[in-house]
Structures are given as structure tokens and as C-alpha cells.
């Protein structure tokens, strides 16, 4: 399974690891798309964990449901989008007992938002494991109108709320679970560079 090596960046930008089995009273996995593969890989190394696992799988156009179910997790949920899964994620985290381990895998937007929910539920962000898989798109907040644009793949991009041309910064807010977008042509209106991939 190929994973993307993010270039070195500034200190507010999150870094991701590889999911490692932890001792815990229960294990909650929240993954989207290719993130399912991170769970499948982990289960190979520590199959017994799965008896205590709750897997929340957001498909993002992938089809790992059968493979994940075959791990025999204690609880399994498949949802179409993060928004659809959110009430269930919140409820599960609110019900969580001491010793719950949280594992996040998939896109940065998914991991950032789910981490926020876990932190609000009282789990320190440093205790949460993450592994990036799949798309390298970013969740971006427009610093001007505060609107969030999901799955941004190009720099610059157009704010989906206010329509300004924004450049993609590496500055990242855990609380907003987003990178910052700032107007690129403020000093020369209309002079917008050609769009390219964020990591091109």
C-alpha cells in the first residue's frame, strides 16, 4: 500500500504516523476511504484487538465494508459522509469509558475533524493515533469569510463560500481542523497564478 510522504513543513502542520496496536479497554477506529487499509493492516498484526473494536468507516467511494466486517469487530458502521457519521461518532465518544483507544486513518480532513471530537470528549490529542491514507486534499478555512472548503487539491483555489481566490497555507488549526486560505490577489486584483496541485 503506497502512502504519501508529506514534505517537511512548519510546526503547526500535523504529522501522521502508522497505527500501532495499543493495550486498551476498547478501540475506536474512525476511517475514511483508503484509511480502511490501515485498519486491515493493523488487524493482521493484532487480530485479537478486533473483539474490542468499533469501526466507523466512511466510504468516500471505496468498498472495504466486506473486508472490514470480516475482521469481526464488536461494532461496525458504514456511512456515506463524515457529516452523516458525526452524530454516531459523538454519541460513541460521549459513552466512552476510561481506557478507550482512538485510531484515525484516511484523509487529513477526516482525521482533523474526528480528532477534534475526541479532544472535546476529553482524550488528549497526543494520545490519539493517526495514519494518512488516500487523497492528499486539504480542508481549508477562508480567513476572510471563515467558510470551510472541503477536499481542496489545488493552490490557489476559489473559496466555495465567498468566491475569493485563496492561496493554500501550511498554517493549521487543530480547533478548526483546517488549513488557512488567504486572498492571493489582494495586492494585484485579478492577477491569480495558474492553479497547480498542492504538492506539485
Amino acid at each position, binding site marked *: 500500500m503506497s502512502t504519501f510522504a508529506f514534505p517537511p513543513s*512548519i*510546526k*503547526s*502542520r500535523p504529522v501522521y504516523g502508522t497505527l500501532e496496536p495499543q493495550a486498551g479497554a476498547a478501540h475506536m477506529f474512525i476511517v475514511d476511504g483508503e484509511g480502511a487499509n490501515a485498519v486491515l493492516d493493523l488487524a493482521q498484526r493484532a487480530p485479537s484487538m478486533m473483539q474490542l473494536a468499533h469501526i466507523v468507516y466512511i466510504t468516500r467511494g471505496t468498498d472495504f465494508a466486506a473486508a472490514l466486517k470480516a475482521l469481526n469487530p464488536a461494532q461496525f458502521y458504514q456511512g456515506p459522509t463524515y457529516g452523516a457519521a458525526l452524530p454516531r461518532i459523538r454519541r460513541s465518544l460521549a459513552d466512552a469509558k476510561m481506557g478507550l483507544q482512538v485510531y484515525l486513518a484516511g484523509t487529513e480532513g477526516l482525521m482533523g475533524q474526528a480528532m477534534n471530537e475526541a479532544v472535546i470528549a476529553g482524550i488528549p490529542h497526543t494520545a490519539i493515533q493517526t495514519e494518512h491514507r488516500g487523497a492528499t486534499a486539504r480542508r481549508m*478555512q477562508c*480567513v*476572510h469569510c*471563515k467558510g470551510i472548503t472541503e477536499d481542496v487539491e489545488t493552490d490557489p483555489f476559489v473559496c466555495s463560500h465567498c468566491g*475569493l481566490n485563496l492561496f493554500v*497555507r*501550511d*498554517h493549521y*488549526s*487543530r*480547533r*478548526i481542523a483546517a488549513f*488557512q486560505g*488567504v*486572498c492571493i490577489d*489582494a*495586492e*494585484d*486584483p485579478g492577477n491569480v497564478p495558474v492553479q497547480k496541485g498542492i504538492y506539485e
Partner: protein
Amino acid sequence: MTIQFNNESFRDDYSFYNSERAIKRFPFPFHEDSYMYSVNMEQHRGGPVDSVYEMRFDVDEHYVSEMRDRAMVLADDPLRCQSLPHMTLAGWDLLELIMVSKSEDYPDLFELHRDGNKWRWINKPLGIDHSFTFLDEATLPCGPMEYITRQAQGDFAVLDQRDDNLWMDAGMVTTQADWSLDFDIGMNFFEWHAPVPLAHEKGIFVRALKFLMNIQQGAPARRLNWTMTVNPLLDTSPENYHKWGIQKTELTPQNIGAKQHLRVELQTFFRLPRSNALVFPIRCYLCSFQDLMGVPKWGRRLHRVIRDLPEELATYKGFIDNRPMMLDYLKDFDDGLPTSPGIWPELDTEPPLTR
């Protein structure tokens, strides 16, 4: 000393101005002819009479107009003032610190009368006479941090100290050099400083954090920081950058002396008693190039500093495109004579410009 408060604006028609007195006490940030980031911190224990270092919270001729500008910024964007729920006690600590300091340092302008928790606060310049119960939020029109920082010049970041780090968990930020409280709130010392070039690599932030975490109550510290702003615009926020950014392109060789301002932040650090939080007031002073050039030492020095400033810093501070025009203007005020060490103007001893 009585202060004559200016009636001026920091937007639209920009009627802001500095009096002769304000220019002489301007905190010129360069103690030598070059500049690089460093851990430039010292104790905040007063300073020369009438200098901006003299009092714990300097009040000057811009006070009333700055507070009016702050109220306008907050009306447009209430997210400029935020406090996470665990920071309310620190807000009361800050209210106490400012009320006690101002009433002791400027007894003709501010009065604080305390009878147990029954407090009466009189702010003459802003026409406030308010009785309230200390530590009872219901007796204030808003939270304690917002209440007092609507009456104090400069931005305020209130930092919670835990896990060997400082966390920006509350703030009042309307006169910032292009950073967003709404975005940075909840970050730690290294995260909110992430965009700064070169300083991380030089180990500056590791050493600065150590220093800050050891600051004790009653022993505040201070440092100066600086950048450049076209027009005396206090609210150079990222939120509004799409509106003010264009002003940077409106400099011409004819208007640069009046329009280009050196923007200096007097940053102080106080430990707060009940919450053990650290408060970081960031007081912004603006001075036009033409007013600065009236001080021969500052004219010579500013030219040399801007000329030799590393490109990364000029880019980060946002004036790389205007630097050639600045140098063209400033070079006429540099006759090559040596300058004396230190930031003070030394008007009596420094030679006049020779040309």
C-alpha cells in the same frame, strides 16, 4: 502630567498623527545598525521618565481614539475577542492588574476604590464610572477580559500554562500585525509561531519559552518587535487583508514619507496571581517615516537596517516589494556618520544630518 487626547482615525481618512512629544518617546526598535531575531527580553521595571517603558501600561495621546477604533472592529467582527471557558479566572486577574496599575500610575485619569469584593472603577478619559462585584461576571456588561481590554490600548493574548508549554486560550486582538486570533486560539507557543522564518532554526523559540514559563508574579518582562504598515492602519488583520492589502501598492516616492509607517510593538509579559496564566499585552505604536527622519540618529539607522535586512524577514513582514522605494527615500537621511548605541534619540548629542 496631563495628556491631551487626540481626536483621530486609524482608517478611511487616516487623521492619526503624533505630537512632538509622541515622536520623541516613540519606541524606536533598533539598538544598533542591523537587525536579526534574537531572544531580546529584559525586565519591565520602568524606564526613563516619560518613556513608553515608564509605566506598567503606557497611556498616551492615542488612547481615546484607539478605544473607539477597537469598538468598531469588534462591532464588525466579534471573533476578535475570544476566551475559552477555562480562562475566565485569568480574565479577572487581568482586570485587576490593569485597574490597579492604571489607577496607581495615572491617578488623575483612573480611580479604583475597593471594599472587599465591591469595586468602583472610574475611567475619566472614557467617561466610565462603574460599580461591580469582583469575580461576579453578572455584574459586568461582558466578560472581565473583554471589559478591561476595551479600556486598554494594545492587543492582549492570555496564555494558559500547562504541559510545559503556553497555550493561547484567550485574547483581544484588533491591532495585530497580520495574524488571526480566531485561527490561532488553542495553539501552543510553537504552533502559533510556526509561520515565522529562521527563528525556529536558531533555537530562539525554545529559549524564549523557557524564559516565559519562569516569569514570576511582580516581575514582568518586555521586548520590542516591529514591522511596516502603509497608512496608520491599526487593524492589519488577515481577516480584512483582501481590503487593506491594496494600500501597500499606493506608495509613491512623493507620498512615502507621510504614508509609510514603522509599526512597533511593545510586548510585555505578566504572571497572573490566581490563574497562574501569563498575559501578553502587545502595544502597537505607529510613526511615519517623515516624523522619524526628524531624529538624525533614527534616520541614519533605519536606512542601514532596512538595507541590510535578510530577504526572508522583509518578505515575512510584507514589505519586500516596497523595499527599493523605501531605501530610495531613506538614503537621503544617511550621511554615513556613526550612530551611538541604544534606541534613544540622543537629540542633544547626535550630530545633525550633514549634506
